[in-house]
């Protein structure tokens, strides 16, 4: 499903070159729930963004459903991301002016892929926001916003859901709720989930933990 081989990412800062990712290889199967753990600066988020095509790599290969996404051009990559991947962030990054429903369907609308509310209602039910569909996201709590972000990421039924510290800005109770939701998504929808987290306890609830340190998988 997802396979990376010898991925290296370096960044230049003035005269010095720094390896953010060093020769990382990894394989994730369809339906996995994977947590990437590690201290700050380990390269977890960078790896996640490289996997999702938001960040480029210096060397190596990234294959998703056997498609080498590292070779895709910007436009094709965006389309691929839209059709196959879902991404959620620590800071939610919703469009504050829109309602819950509008946030979820907006990109699909732009691609003219939004047909009816059937799947939307299902998703809202899954994330527990049915009664908030027409509420502006600015009026929601942090946990609710993250649930909107999850629903938005799932709207196009992606194969993989990437989550960058989805509970990082939430209290423990809400974090628990969100993690349960991700489990539910993984279990009920069969979506592969790859999350980056600091929380050991939450990571343990995923099927697999990948530990990173200094840009390498340990």
């Amino acid at each position, binding site marked *: 499903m997802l396979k990376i081989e010898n991925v290296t990412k370096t960044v230049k800062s003035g005269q010095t070159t720094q390896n953010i990712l060093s020769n990382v290889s990894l394989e994730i199967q369809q339906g996995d729930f994977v947590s990437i753990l590690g201290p700050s600066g380990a390269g977890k988020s960078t790896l996640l963004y490289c996997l999702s095509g938001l960040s480029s790599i210096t060397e190596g290969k990234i294959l998703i459903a056997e498609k080498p996404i590292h070779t895709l051009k910007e*436009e094709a990559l*965006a*389309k691929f991301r839209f059709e196959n991947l879902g991404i959620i962030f620590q800071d939610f990054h919703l*469009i*504050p002016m829109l309602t819950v429903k509008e946030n979820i369907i*907006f990109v699909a609308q*732009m691609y003219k892929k939004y047909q009816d509310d059937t799947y939307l209602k299902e998703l809202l039910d899954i994330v527990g926001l049915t009664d908030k569909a027409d509420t*502006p996201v*600015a009026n929601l709590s942090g946990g609710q916003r993250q649930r909107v972000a999850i629903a938005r990421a799932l709207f196009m039924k992606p194969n993989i859901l990437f989550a960058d510290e989805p509970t990082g800005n939430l209290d423990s109770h809400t974090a628990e709720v969100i993690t349960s939701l991700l489990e539910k998504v993984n279990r009920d929808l069969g979506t592969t989930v790859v999350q980056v987290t600091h929380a050991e306890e939450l990571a343990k609830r995923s099927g697999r933990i990948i530990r990173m340190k200094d840009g390498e998988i340990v």
Partner: protein
Amino acid sequence: MKIYQQFLKSYYRLHKMQFLGPLFTLTIICAILFGSISANELIAKQTESHFYDQYGEVTQIVRLQHDQFRSEDDFVKDWTGKNKTTYLQSNGVHEKNNKVNFVNFYGVDQAFYKVFPFDQVYELKGNDAVVSASFAKAHKLKKGDMITIKTYSTPFDYQVAAIADGDFFAKEDGQGANILVSKEQFRKNFQLPEKDVTTLAGTDLKVQKHKNVYQTENVRENVSAIGQMQMIQFVVMIIDAVILLVSTYILFGFYRMAFVGKLHYLSILNIIGIQKRRLTALMWLENIVLMTIIYSILAIVSVCLLPLGWIYYVAVYGILLATIVIANGFITSLFRKTDVLAYILGREQVKIKQGWVPFFVLLLVLVAACVVKPTIYTFVLVGISLLFGVFWMLGNAKQSSVQLIKHLNRERIVNEMKAILMLAIISLLLIYAAITGVQHFITGVYSNWKFDQQITVNEEKTVEIQTYLAVNNVEQAEFLWKNYSLEPLDVKHKGEKLSIDDLIGINDQDDLKGFNIKGNIDMKLLQAGNNVYLNEKYKKYHLLDEVQMDGKRFEIVGYFDSSMNATDHVAIVSEESFRKLDDTKISQFYIKNDELILNKLYGEFGDDILGTMDARQQSLDNTSFAQNLQSVLMIFILFIALISILSLLNSFFILRDKQQKLFAILGAAGLSKKKLMSLNFWQIFALGGQGLLIAEVILILVLRFFEWFIQTVIGQNIPLVVTYEMQLQAIGVYLFVLIVVWLASRRNLKKMNILQTIRER
């Protein structure tokens, strides 16, 4: 105080551009205010000068025969004397000693005088006089001045044909000759016996300088344009008012935007323990610093460039100060009400409800326009604008691009979007107003330019012709008739001899008037044989009728209007006509057969230029005025265009920056850059289109309102028409801005790093 200084220092270091932006814009706005008031001032002066032309005592008639020998500088230098109401009175000697020989004259046939650069011998003809240099200087006489020499009770006009370079026969004690006149003519004028006229020195002679009112037809046209100038002034005043309002709004908008940008920092300062009242004081302090800088810049610019009175400074500073106070009051109250913690945490949006006020004000204007001019057209326009307003606010379009725009109009960004729309509207209004104003200005001053050209340049089509008139007034005619048995002008109309009353206007004034007239005579027509222009008083004689003068037949080809002249001229013929008819020199007509007084026939095509000294001076002033006005207007319109462009660009770029993260999020969610760019394109042009349409509607209605207002208040019907060309110009500027914004945004989006943008912002 120290904390304030530190804050200001760090703030301006960090946000130099934010600081310079408003500063620059404010400076420009102030320049516009000054520029418009300055233009107004100039217009006012112009109007005043026209009034002066109409009612003032324009006294000297100058005849500039030898201009071609002079440089322009010399010319101007020579004709800058002020001598509007000076009469040559009896001199001191006369008054003190009751002597009679206060003016010395000499009768000669030829006078030597010098006109740079040639020495010439001047043959005295008719009522020509040559005066000594010292005499001319003492009485401020110039060539072409009319003087009256009066013996006993008989006055006669003489024209200063030349000023000698020396005092010729004059003596130091005032004796001797200061005025040289023709012996023969002098004798005839004053019914003197055949003897040497020089013996008359010492008789009771008075020299009186004429108070002649001389106006060209063009001047009269200008005078008639005074009403128009007043209207223009009124229109300019309205434009000023609009600009003031709009500028105030822009100023306010900039403060608001600057404040919203600043709120974050103020909130952090508040969180770390600085009281709100101290922060409020900080804001005031900052604004005062800002204003001090602006005042300084303005003061320097104004003093250097604009010769304005203190009252204008006070007025403009007062307006600015009021704006600052209002803006400060507003942002202070906003800041006081802001829950800074909530704001920093993103839980509270800064809502600026006042953002809608201008929109509703404009709406009120529309409604008012409907009320005052309830035409179907007005109602339709208002209806469209209201529909647009509804769509704008509550639109329910399904297309995704439009939907985004609709969504973007919510919450926080709504204020910025409104600001952009408002800016679009006011920018267009500004541009329209400026162009309209310029059009009016140009229309207003066009006649002046025309006037200048006609005064200074002899154009073929508008050649100035100076001619003679047969007789001057009834008294003179009767006098001549009785004393010299002169027959009145031998003019026949269809074979019937006309009486003198038919031809001579009654002149109430004691003074004899000058013989000069200038009008827009069709030279070609006039020169085409025996053509004559008659005074319009003789319109009872029809065009193409034949009249006889001095036994010569002339055909009436037109009339001239001498109502504005103090003299009543009868007829204008061309020198060419006389020559062609009689094949004789003009001088032979002067006293031909003692039947007709033909003092002199001027009219050498392209040779003589007539004009009063004041008119001449005025023409120079007009030229200078027109040039100044043109410069001011150019600066004015450039400023307006610049500020409009800057405002629009600024607003769009602020919006773009605010939306950058939004675009990055959409990009992360899989929206391709192509689609993002498309979104951006439609957003810019949909907003631009809305602004344009609303501006168009408002413009039309506002103009109609002003038309009604002007008609109601001052009773003038001034059509305020914005031509298609003007609209196209404004729309062109607007489109240019939109295209620049689009291209810049497109480039920005192309280069956008999604991840970096999400993280950084």
